[in-house]
Structures are given as C-alpha cells and as structure tokens.
C-alpha cells in the first residue's frame, strides 16, 4: 500500500474512533500537541454529521429528546459512513436504521417520523415538471377514456403509516405535545411540492391511495376501476376515479395524460 493510502486509511479510522496509527504520521511541532490537533478534525467531522441529522430531522430530534438523540447520532455515524458527495443523502438510511437498531426499533413510530421527514425533503428537491390543468380532460374523447394513463409530478411521494407519526410530526411542528405513540391502523399520505415551491401533504382514503398506486404502476383508467368494485358498484366506480382525478388536478399533481 502506498504511503498516501495508508495515511488516508489511518485518518479515516481515527475519525470513526477505531484503532488507528494516525498519530505516527503527525509531528509534535512548535509546541503543538498532535492529539489536540488531530482532535480538531474528529470534532469537526462529528459535529458536521450531527448538524446534518439535526437539520434534516428536527422533529425526530425533538420527539426523541436530547439523550436519545445523542445516542442516535453516535450510533448512526459509526454504522452509516457517508458514501455520497452530497450531505443531502447522508440520512437516507436513517428510517431503516431506526427500524433495525435497538432501542429505537422498539418504537416503530420513530422510523415513520424519520421517513415522513425524508419524503418532505425528497419532494422539495425533486425536478420540476409542467403540470396539467383539469381542462386537459375535456379534450379526451369518450372512446379514449378507458385507455388513459397518467404521469405524476416528480415531487410526489406516498407514505403508508401504521402509527400516529404524521399527527405527532404536526403536533411538534406547531409546538404542541404529541399524543402517545399509538398503532392506529394504516393511514395513507401523499406529499408533493406545489407550484409555489412549497411542500404540501394530505391524507388519502385507502381506495384513493390504491388507485393512485395503480396509476403509478402504469395501469390505465379501466384497469384502475376494477379494484374499486370492492367498495363501489359498477356504475359508481368510474365516477369515483374521475373524482380522484379532479382532486389530483386540483393538487397540481398530474403532468401528463397518455391516451
């Protein structure tokens, strides 16, 4: 191994608190204590990553409280070294980490809150795309309706939450205490960035959520009507889909109709 490569490895090991011979590479010169100097790097390294977790997940941080947040930072830094050029992706593994690592994994609401915060960020960073207005539906002739497919805005994110995670996020965001964590049955959410570049979200019924999922998978209008027969009769189901479409146009979520 080259001298340079050895130095890189030793320094990285040092930053991660692993056994390291980095101090063998450093001079004690001009009265400078090499351990103090090395520590400037380790301190800055950890602080930078801590700040990223804190900035990306402010609500999770408040939900956890200082002590658990410190533990999260300590464990996450060691287990998930940054492999991206941008710190924007540093916390991408955080929801998964929280669902796997004790003591966090004993409270599944934590992973959901973290995921919700990440989806808000993804929506914020997504590429832009022209949005269609409801008038685009008027030019579709009746014979084309069954085959239409939809494309959605790149910022659109879907969340399926079992716990009162979004409600707790809302409470903390508006400086109220969240209710105790409860498994309240599946709740469905759509998150997106609106035309003013602000992130929005709202809850969805299960039929609306599964219709949206089916469109996302590439199903056409007639195909997405079928599963709705579980809740609506044959006459009502297509109108129900049209109602959803209206809402999605209202939300400025649709970017393309393929006939």
């Amino acid at each position, binding site marked *: 191994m*080259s*001298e*340079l*490569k050895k*130095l*890189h*490895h030793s*320094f*990285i090991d040092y*930053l991660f608190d692993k056994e390291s011979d980095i101090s*063998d*590479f*450093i*001079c004690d*010169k*001009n*009265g*400078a204590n*090499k351990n*103090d*100097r*090395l520590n*400037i*790097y380790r301190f*800055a*390294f950890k602080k*930078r*990553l801590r700040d990223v977790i804190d900035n990306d997940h402010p609500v999770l941080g408040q939900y956890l409280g200082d002590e658990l947040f410190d533990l999260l930072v300590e464990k996450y830094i060691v287990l998930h*070294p*940054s*492999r*991206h*050029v*941008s*710190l*924007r992706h540093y916390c991408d593994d955080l929801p998964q980490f929280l669902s796997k690592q004790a003591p966090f994994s004993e409270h599944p609401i934590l992973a959901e809150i973290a995921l919700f915060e990440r989806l808000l960020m993804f929506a*914020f*960073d*997504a*590429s*832009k795309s022209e949005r269609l207005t409801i008038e685009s539906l008027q030019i579709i002739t009746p014979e084309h309706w069954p085959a239409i497919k939809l494309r959605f805005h*790149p*910022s659109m994110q879907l969340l399926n939450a079992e716990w009162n995670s979004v409600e707790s996020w809302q409470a903390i965001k508006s400086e109220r205490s969240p209710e105790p964590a409860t498994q309240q049955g599946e709740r469905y959410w759509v998150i997106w*960035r609106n035309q003013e*570049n602000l992130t929005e979200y709202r809850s969805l019924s299960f039929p609306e959520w599964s219709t949206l999922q089916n469109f996302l998978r590439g199903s056409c209008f007639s195909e997405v009507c079928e599963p709705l027969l579980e809740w609506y009769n044959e006459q009502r189901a297509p109108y129900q889909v049209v109602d959803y479409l209206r809402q999605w146009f209202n939300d400025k979520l649709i970017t393309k109709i393929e006939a």
Partner: protein
Amino acid sequence: MDINNGRPYLGFGLGLRTEHYHHVLEQKPDIDWFEIISENYMVAGGKPKYFLHAIREHYPMVMHGVSLSIGSSDPLDINYLKSLRSLIAEVQPEWVSDHLCWTSAHGINTHDLMPLPYTEEAINHVVERVQQAQEFLGRPILLENVSSYVTYKHSVISEWEFFNEIVARSGCLMLLDINNIYVSSRNHNFDPLRYIDSVDKEKVFQFHLAGHSDYGDYVIDTHDHPVVESVWSLYRYAIEHLGAVSTMIERDDQIPPFEELEAELNYARGIASEFLPQTNAQFQSSCSNKVSRASSCQS
C-alpha cells in the same frame, strides 16, 4: 502596471447563500459576481435551482466545489465529474474551483478538507488526477489552499512549494484563500508573506477572504466571523504583490444580513484601490452609488 497580469478579472464578489436569495433577486445589489457551491445545485430541481437560474441572469458566476477529493487514493469519482460537467454547461461559470486536499478515501466521504503530506508521491498523484479532471471537464480548474491543523512527518517541502509544483506540472490555476494562509501560518508557525511571495502570480485567479476562530495556541477556519485585521493586512500585501485578483468574502455560518457582507466587501475594495488604479475607479464609482458591473476582461 498591467493590473490583470493576463488573468481574467471579475472584481469583487460574494459567496451566494440561500439566506440571501430573495434579497439578491429583489434588490440586485451592486456585487460584481457570485460564487456558488457546486454541490448545492447538483439536485434535480426545486428552490435552489430556481434561484440559481434567476440570479445567474443578472450576475457572472464562478463554481466552487468541495467533493472532487483530488488527493484521495480512491479513483476519481466519474459520477461526480459528470454532475459537475452538466452543472458547468448549465451555469456557464467564468471558472471552476475545488480544494488541494482529500475529502474521501476507502469509499467514505469525510465531508472535510483533509490536508495532504507535502511529498513527491502526493505531487505525482495529484498532478495526474488534476490532468484527468481537466481533460474530463475540458478546462483548467482552480485549486484552493486549505487551512490545516496537523503537520505530517513525511512532508519534505513547504505547503507553497507543494502547491506551486502541482500548479506548474498540471496546468491548473490557483485560488488563494488569504484567511487559510493566515490560519495555517499560525498553526504551523511559518511566515505568511513568504507564501504570497512564492506563488506564481500569473496563476492566481481568485482570492477568498473569510473569518476564523482564534484559540491562542491554534486557529480554526470557521467562516463564521467577519475578516480580522491580520487577514486584511495579508490581503493588502497580496494585492500589492500579486495585482488585481478577483476577490470575494466567504461566509458559511452565522450568515449576517446581506448588507453586512456588502460592507465587508467594500472594505476589500477600499484596500485594493490603494494599489490598483482600475479598482480605485471602480471603488469611487461604487461609493458614488453608480451601478458598476465588472466584466471579464481577459487580456
């Protein structure tokens, strides 16, 4: 005096920060140019991209990266270079810079500007990679000196000799961070004037000025304070010896209102005007509130 020394000269700029997006767009302040952090705009869309394009319509820009990791022992990150190349095509910057350091190794990104040992091995390694990067981007890049806190036993030459050698052999250019020279001179006990005296002046395209935190025994490059008097003195010396070099204030933390940075930048203009007739004219005109935009005057 040829105050441009064959270099393009942009005048006085600031680092573009999200906190100032609205102000810049609404007030169109009298700033000659902006420097953007490349990585902040390597996103598909959203607010940063919107402001980048809107502000670019009114100001010249340069791009400053933190992730090239030119001194790393990992292969150059081609995906990063591709993102950089497409951002260059989008922004059409006057030039592109990164740091003379390593930021990642072993596939792990430290997100810090880690110092290199000043050895023949490191020179050869960096020169080869600078040439690869320049070939890929189709243009020379600027490298910036970083602040450092440790001295490697293996170093056989000074930092400025190391920097000069890499510049001479790779064909890259220099971004001299005057604050970093000061910080490292305090931490390693060298004469900062010698650093400035020794650089090849034709290669110096840009200056950074920034604040730091002084702990007595050592100084940390924190970019969260105004520029201090000793750095202004060093800047005065640099302008006197290197001529007109595009200058900017770099503030990354504790971002103050825009006007404060503008005032700091005007202080730099004032210092430069003591030595440079052209800058003096610009300084006068900016004091009398005329809008002056320096253009790239490549000679």
